[in-house]
């Protein structure tokens, strides 16, 4: 809502308050100012001048030389190219050193050898259009009319009324009454505690019975509680006077003609939309407020044909819709230059219905944005009265004294119990009851019999808390004391939150950087990570109104988000990166309204220092830290239980298993996937299922006594088939050595000349220790024998 300060001054005098303070104070009492602008702020040293003479330029056939009286001792000479100038006219003169909108500066100079000491201005050069001054022309000098102050040398901004200040308010949806000059004047009245001068509008009218001229019928009183109509005869369609045009302009509304301007003026002043019909085009002279028929059509004022549906409310004549109720009028029945009889409509339509209709038709108008917040039908009459008053004031036609009022509305006021103690207890304040009453009365509330009675226009008042807010905002939010919540509260993170923090902290300690990605992805990403067409991951939650395909489904896999980030970093020529993200996947659940949102850990890395075993080591360290033990990491396959398997290099992909349950997958990305992402380097990635891991982990750490007795270390090198997983050798050794095993560590894997092809040599260092006493060589030898036997059973033999 843009407010004209000149207009506001009709109702409350705030002229002595600097605009900055006005804006601050009214913001702090609840009407937020977004910005304010002084009109014509860029215009300086432009004055009213009178053309004394206009003669042809001696060196040009399109320039003329003017002598202009600008109220100084001597007239000044100005050369212009305009063809609409004649001696005797009054014009805006930009003097030497003046400024105009758009940063234009005017300096004296010579045009074709003739001195020119300034410039005569057009409307456009002053930042105006012909809508502001309909008698002026677009391509030519603005010849000032009678509605301007023609004092020579007068600052042009004052002379033509380009000196208003507009204040832009952000009005919240609960206060449609403040989308009006009078509404804001009331707020200013309460804020600045100075008199408010609002009188009920009245008109004289001419004799006549409106019921003989037209009729109104409401078919759906639920969606239209009140419809009022007045008729104006013998109208004279012409431009509005300057003061109306000026105020509309300040509020950002384009002046059209006197009747259209009156409807807009009333809407801006009272916050109540109006409409004007040409009675000629209301067939049968009857107005029917009814639901549209499915498929019914209307061409609205903006010239677009709209197809209506039956939940929409229309204003119809005997045959067809003439307006979409509360949204926009029809082109056919609008005011034209030859209109002779006008019907004014002031009606109150249901907010939700207007909102749905406007949304469905894709046309939000000044009218619909007011209706949809909910207007009180008890405020309808003053809008109609004001319009009629303005017609008479402008001498624009004869208003018939009688008017139609189809009224189905509730006349009761909203009432709430007045309990000053409750209000103080609720706010934590100590405001005297008398002050509260003063605040409320300044906002037009009445206090009667222990009740607060709200004025009609306050559609937002429902409960005690609403009254508390009114009191608080006038008292001043910042005058409320600051206190600390009473009572003891204990707080701690949940086990899940602690676990996830441990994951994050460990990954950071392991040198992996944290990323945050969008939860929505493109369905195409499934192809990019090689998912088979029948993969269950392709069944995702779809957004009905996405911004674009790339963000159209909720991810069922966190992996493509990671791939996108890796690809972007590769593209940015970041040499080597390691990233992790702890984020959700969104998995539809059969028979449930909402998807499951399990948390997942994604890891991704590329660069010289990274390989499969670096990634594996990172994951192992993490799992150790978060308390997962006795798990296996095995070669993954298509049936490993994790669908992202297809994104990985089939020979370099492993699955993390515990108790037969897959807890994660890790490996090198498939070359096809790298190609899809345009990454020219090997990439290692992993995905871990966090809730599943939490379930099988134990964060309890128990101290083990430090060893008292020395350990014995034995190395063993064996040769086996290259396909035999090293993990199975390790397991066999552990089992065979038994209780005295402290650790078994791989220290070499060799394939080459000294080994038969198809075989590999694997070397372990085995540390044994007893907690009961010093191990003997014999005990160690025995254990090693058992270990050797166990691995021989796997087809390995001691390396010669």
């Amino acid at each position: 809502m843009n407010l004209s300060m000149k207009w506001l001054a009709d109702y409350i005098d705030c002229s002595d308050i600097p605009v900055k303070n006005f804006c601050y104070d009214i913001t702090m009492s609840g009407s937020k100012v977004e910005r304010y602008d002084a009109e014509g702020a860029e215009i300086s040293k432009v004055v009213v001048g009178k053309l004394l003479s206009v003669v042809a330029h001696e060196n040009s056939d399109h320039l003329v030389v003017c002598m202009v009286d600008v109220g100084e001792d001597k007239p000044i000479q100005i050369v212009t190219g305009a063809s609409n100038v004649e001696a005797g006219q009054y014009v805006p003169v930009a003097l030497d050193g003046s400024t105009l909108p758009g940063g234009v500066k005017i300096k004296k100079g010579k045009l074709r050898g003739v001195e020119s000491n300034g410039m005569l201005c057009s409307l456009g050069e002053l930042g105006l259009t012909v809508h502001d001054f309909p008698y002026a022309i677009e391509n030519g000098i603005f010849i000032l009319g009678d509605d301007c102050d023609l004092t020579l040398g007068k600052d042009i901004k004052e002379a033509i009324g380009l000196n208003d200040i507009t204040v832009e308010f952000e009005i919240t949806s609960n206060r449609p009454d403040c989308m009006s000059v009078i509404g804001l004047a009331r707020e200013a009245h309460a804020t600045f505690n100075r008199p408010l001068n609002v009188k009920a509008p009245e008109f004289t009218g001419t004799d006549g019975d409106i019921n003989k001229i037209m009729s109104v019928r409401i078919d759906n009183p639920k969606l239209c509680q009140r419809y009022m109509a007045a008729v104006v005869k013998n109208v004279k369609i012409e431009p509005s006077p300057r003061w109306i045009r000026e105020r509309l302009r300040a509020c950002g509304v384009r002046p059209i003609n006197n009747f259209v301007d009156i409807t807009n003026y009333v809407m801006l002043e009272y916050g109540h939309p109006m409409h004007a019909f040409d009675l000629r085009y209301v067939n049968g002279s009857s107005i029917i407020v009814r639901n549209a028929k499915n498929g019914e059509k209307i061409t609205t004022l903006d010239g677009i044909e709209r197809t209506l549906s039956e939940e929409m409310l229309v204003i119809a004549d005997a045959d067809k819709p003439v307006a979409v109720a509360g949204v926009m009028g029809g082109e056919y029945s609008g005011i034209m230059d030859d209109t002779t009889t006008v019907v004014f409509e002031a009606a109150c339509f249901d907010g939700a219905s207007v909102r749905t209709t406007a949304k469905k038709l894709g046309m939000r108008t000044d009218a619909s944005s007011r209706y949809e917040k909910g207007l009180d039908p008890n405020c309808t009459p003053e809008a109609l009265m004001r319009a009629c008053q303005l017609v008479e004031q402008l001498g624009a036609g004869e208003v018939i004294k009688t008017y139609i009022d189809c009224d189905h509305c509730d006349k009761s006021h909203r009432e709430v119990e007045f309990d000053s103690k409750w209000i103080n207890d609720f706010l934590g304040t100590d405001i005297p009851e008398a002050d509260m009453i003063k605040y409320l009365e300044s906002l037009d509330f009445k206090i009667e019999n222990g009740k607060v009675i709200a004025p009609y226009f306050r559609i937002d008042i429902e409960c005690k808390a609403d009254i508390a807010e009114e009191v608080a905002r006038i008292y001043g939010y910042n005058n409320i004391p600051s206190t600390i919540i009473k009572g003891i509260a204990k707080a701690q993170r949940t086990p899940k939150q602690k676990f996830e923090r441990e994951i994050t902290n460990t990954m950071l300690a392991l040198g992996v950087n944290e990323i945050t990605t969008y939860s929505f992805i493109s369905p195409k990403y499934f192809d990019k990570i090689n998912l088979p067409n029948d993969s269950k991951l392709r069944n995702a939650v779809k957004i009905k109104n996405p911004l674009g395909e790339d963000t159209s489904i909720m991810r069922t896999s966190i992996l493509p988000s990671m791939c996108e980030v890796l690809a972007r970093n590769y593209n940015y020529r970041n040499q080597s990166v390691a990233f992790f993200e702890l984020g959700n996947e969104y998995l539809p659940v059969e028979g449930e309204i909402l998807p499951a949102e399990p948390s997942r850990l994604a890891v991704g890395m590329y660069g010289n220092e990274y390989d499969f075993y670096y990634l594996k080591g990172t994951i192992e360290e993490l799992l150790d830290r978060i308390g997962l033990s006795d798990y296996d990491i095995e070669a993954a396959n298509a049936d490993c239980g994790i669908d992202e398997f297809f994104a990985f290099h089939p020979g370099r992909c492993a699955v993390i298993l515990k108790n037969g349950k897959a807890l994660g997958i890790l490996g090198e990305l498939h070359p096809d996937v790298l190609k899809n992402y345009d990454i020219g380097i090997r990439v290692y990635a992993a995905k871990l299922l966090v809730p599943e891991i939490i379930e099988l982990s134990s964060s309890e750490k128990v101290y083990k006594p430090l060893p008292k007795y020395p350990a014995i270390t034995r190395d063993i090198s064996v040769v086996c088939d290259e396909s035999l997983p090293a993990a199975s050798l390790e397991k066999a050794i552990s089992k065979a050595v038994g209780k005295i095993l402290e650790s078994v560590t791989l220290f070499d894997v060799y394939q080459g000349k000294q080994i038969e092809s198809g075989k590999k040599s694997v070397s372990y260092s085995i540390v044994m220790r007893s907690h009961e006493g010093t191990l003997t060589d014999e005990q160690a030898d025995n254990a090693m024998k058992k270990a050797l036997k166990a691995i021989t059973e796997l087809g390995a033999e001691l390396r010669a």
Partner: protein
Amino acid sequence: MREALEKIEQAAKEQLEMVSEAKALEELRVKFLGKKGELTAILKQMGKLSPEERPVIGQLANKVRSDIEQAIAQRLESINNAEKEKRLKEETLDVTLPGKKIKIGKPHPLNKVLNEVEEVFIGMGFDIVEGPEVETDHYCFEALNMPKHHPARDTQDTFYINENVVLRTQTSSVQIRTMENTKPPIRIISPGRVYRSDTVDATHSPLFHQIEGLVIDKGITMSDLKGTLELLMKRLYGEECKIRLRPHHFPYTEPSAEVDIMCFNCGGKGCSMCKQEGYVELLGAGMVHPKVLRDCGIDPEIYSGFAFGIGLERITMGRFNINDMRLLYENDLRFLGQF
């Protein structure tokens, strides 16, 4: 013999001076004091001396021996010292050469700030509660006093899954779920991802993060809300930081407020960063609307409470002077490595 002894001592001391290595010193010790050394050789001739002379020469011989030993020891120490000095000198490093790059992961700036906020709230007795991001219309809107067609829904452009399921536009949905399941007193914050269909630009993202707080108990007042927010901001931004409350409207709180923080750049004087206002909008807050309480099964005649919602992106960007929200979701290592 006396002369011979004195000569030896003389010779030993002279030669010691010439020695500069531990090894040569040892050779010298053997030469003079060893079993086959010069001193021993002289002592062997002691038998030839008269009984009167023997103890005198013997004493002298012992003195010569201990003098030489002492001289050797002294010399050794100085040689060792010299060698140590030399080694230390040789080992001098250019300490201005760069340190070895030790890798440590960097937290995402959003999580870094979220963590700090969570710590402050845990310290103030707030539990951290999570909830679904794909949410029913009921929890996201209706239970928050925003029935279908409520005009306030327009300010939160919503992604719809179907007519009754949305991507939550605020984490207030978690508050409703908590109020339905928990008896007061309630003191929670609910951080998390929220979604609004805003096109991506420097200050908008269709996905962002909120931290919403909720306190419900007997006798909770608006002054408690003010005190809590002031405390939070002081913990986050320092004791000198100032906030102000401005009346606003949210359907789920009454009274409602927007909370501004004094501009760090100009200290409230007004500058280009705060659009000359001296304050920057920070969060929304208010007293929980009685209707919301009642619908969650909490009697508003007995209990009251407040709620607030902070945009994590906003405070993170303010904190690190980040001028483009897109950077937060682009995850360029050159950006992430800075936090």
